[in-house]
């Protein structure tokens, strides 16, 4: 396959960026999208040009590092991560636009690499269960109904890639935050911190400069792990419940 790439190039956080055009040839449909970019980078290095910087690591769809907007879609045309997108999803002769996540809470570091540390700070605000090592009761002391365990798992699958934010017209982080709130709040182990968790995480999310949610639903469409939109509704319910409870105290 022969392709034309239009790639966002930005030397550093504080410099202006622009789209640059590159041609790549001999692309196999079996290559992953990132392997196609590897090919481009090998050429650029040998030509004495700066290769395109992009985040990537496991290349099997689980670490959440890769983060490209491809032809306007977070992670591209298939419902998967960029690293699991293969060139067979494109046609010979295509022109492909490659951009970084676009959100004010995710500033660009270089080219296609953005700073997603705001996500870490949302987790630090309450996305955990306080269970210091050594304090745990026997694992079977509390049975967890299978539907609850399965529901917790469904939300725990979030890989923290940030596609939800990139896809959202408002740059909101509701799907990410709700995934963690629901994972932990649905479990009996998470019950003691149920209210503080949702209140603190949502407050942190707002402080980080993510946009407000208007239930546009783009997040759930872009999510490579299929976190459902209803997750946000559940979190809103948890938040209202916690707010009412806090008011009573």
């Amino acid at each position, binding site marked *: 396959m022969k392709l034309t790439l239009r790639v966002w190039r930005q*030397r550093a956080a504080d410099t202006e960026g622009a789209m640059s055009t590159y041609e790549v040839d001999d692309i196999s449909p079996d290559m992953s999208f990132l392997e196609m970019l590897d090919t481009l980078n090998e050429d650029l290095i040998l030509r004495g040009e700066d290769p395109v910087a992009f985040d990537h690591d496991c290349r099997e769809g689980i670490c959440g590092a890769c983060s490209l907007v491809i032809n306007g879609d977070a992670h591209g045309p298939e419902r998967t991560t960029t690293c699991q997108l293969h060139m067979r999803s494109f046609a010979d002769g295509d022109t492909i636009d490659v951009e970084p996540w676009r959100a004010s809470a995710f500033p660009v570091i270089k080219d296609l690499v953005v700073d997603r540390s705001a996500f870490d700070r949302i987790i630090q605000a309450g996305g955990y269960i306080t269970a210091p*090592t050594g304090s745990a009761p026997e694992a079977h002391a509390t049975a967890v109904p299978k539907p609850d365990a399965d529901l917790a798992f469904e939300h725990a699958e979030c890989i923290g890639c940030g596609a939800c934010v990139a896809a959202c017209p408002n740059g909101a982080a509701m799907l990410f935050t709700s995934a963690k709130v629901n994972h932990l709040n649905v479990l009996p182990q998470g019950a003691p911190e149920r209210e503080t968790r949702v209140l603190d995480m949502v407050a942190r999310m707002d402080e980080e400069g993510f946009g407000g949610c208007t239930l546009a639903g783009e997040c759930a469409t872009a999510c490579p792990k299929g976190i459902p939109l209803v997750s946000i509704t559940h979190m809103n319910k948890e938040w209202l419940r916690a707010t009412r409870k806090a008011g009573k105290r």
Partner: protein
Amino acid sequence: MSTSSAYADYTTGDPVVDTKAPEGPIAERWDKRRFEAKLVNPANRRKHTVIVVGTGLAGGSAGATLAEQGYHVVQFCYQDSPRRAHSIAAQGGINAAKNYRNDGDSVHRLFYDTVKGGDFRARESNVHRLAQISVEIIDQCVAQGVPFAREYGGLLDTRSFGGVQVSRTFYARGQTGQQLLLGAYQALSRQIAAGNVEMHPRTEMLDLIVVDGRARGIVARDLITGKIDTYFADAVVLASGGYGNVFYLSTNAMNSNATAVWRAHRRGALFANPCFTQIHPTCIPRTGDHQSKLTLMSESLRNDGRIWVPKAKGDQRPPHEIPEDERDYYLERIYPSFGNLVPRDIASRAAKNVCDEGRGVGPGGQGVYLDFADAIERMGRAAVEAKYGNLFDMYQRITDEDPYRIPMRIYPAVHYTMGGLWVDYDLQTTVPGLFAIGEANFSDHGANRLGASALMQGLADGYFVLPATINDYLARHPRQDEVGPEHPLVQEVLAETEDRLHLLLAVDGDRTPDSFHRELGELMWEFCGMARTEGGLRKALERIPQIREEFWRRIKVPGTGEEFNQSLEKANRIVDYLELAELMCLDALHRAESCGGHFREESQTPDGEAEREDDTFSYAAAWEFTGTGTAPVLHKEDLVFEYVHPTQRSYA
């Protein structure tokens, strides 16, 4: 420049005698060690700083636990977030001797299985402790909210894994590593928020600072600004993972690397059993030269999938046209009692053998079938989907073939490294104050790791072992003189690191970092991969210094050191691979026996099984660095088996 033959002329130094493992009945040793270990008064702990490098299962759990105990932790990861460490990719599960199934499991059986699975090249005391701690890990993870798979009654589900006959593997669909890592990451996040952990993401350790014979800090580079800085502590913990990426193609993450352990080795830490690498049997075969990494599929697939190749060589028919009696279910044939569930090393080698015979399938004949047709007929498609759905999806996405209809094609790939920094019972290396945990050490798996045991070991080391043993070191070594950036030794280490990076940028040659990495990887796969021979290893030992020499002549790294520069990161890691690879080949050459993942063609039984030479090689080989390309010194730790008596492993 020294030649390979000079490198191969290693000398043998003093044996490693003191492993610090207590004497007495094995089941009491861990209690005994914990009781004898000195403690640090809780009020004094905050005065101690501990550096932890890496945030995978071992590093994440260690950082969180040390901070909970009151230590000041300074932690590093090269990823943009501690949540992305490669432990996240582990799929299958985590072993624990809970015996919830009432199927005859026990701590002793897990201990026995692990020593036997490791082909009698692990230290009994450590392995027994691992088995003991396994049960606490599950409790800890459940308390953190790890959503393990459960039965309808609400209790935890388990499954069986390769090399064992009990069902002791706890799992969270095909994403167990992810869920366990997020548990540790969340515990770590809590400590970061509390101000007890100072977290440095996108920061890579480039050297170790040793002052007066003790590990006192590290040199690390901020990957965003390129700034190289020094960090100081009372102890340093390396949890930086394994070195499988020496092979270029492996199931490791692209940026997983050996720099932290290799630089520690250069500063005096012995490196043990570097040739013990695990080739995982169930990976997706490569499709072409563009391949950048290999993808593993959980070996839990072997619970229900049946592995086969055509009986006839060069049979080009599609799988559904090959009748049942023309198929060779070779694992079931050769190993009737374990069948498709033999340990990884055996399954991988068997796949290689049938492919070498010309019976492999798929492109280049480098593959075997993993067939779920019988499972789908027996359990129904829905049940197979519930159990393995995400793995099937992943396979389909990568290969564009539907595994519900067409048997999967699999081939072995480098997956895990059992070797690593030598550590004693306390997980301390030979550099006082330097500890190594998780895959970074050599400790528990001998010559072959059993499935679902890496997660167990990472969390055992991080949550329970290190936090108990590091107290003893810190209590016995109260704060000494402050070591700061102006210390002449520190200046020297820093200058060495800066010079190395400058040199990489200055060569301005005509070959990319990847081209060297690929060349080295192909060489290692051919001569130090699934089957090794004296001749092949000697060839590799001759070739590696040549590649190294060419590297420093022709490497091209664009950009500067004072910016985000992924090519520079890569090139600097390859510098270390080019040295470590040499030690791996030498270790493989010196160990003229077959054991576990190390198969020397010269040493096999008439049936083609690995033949150990216990009289000669029942030891861990701990190597001492003497200089790039110069012969290292071998220190042997004799392995004593008091409880599990070495026998020829039999899975027939």
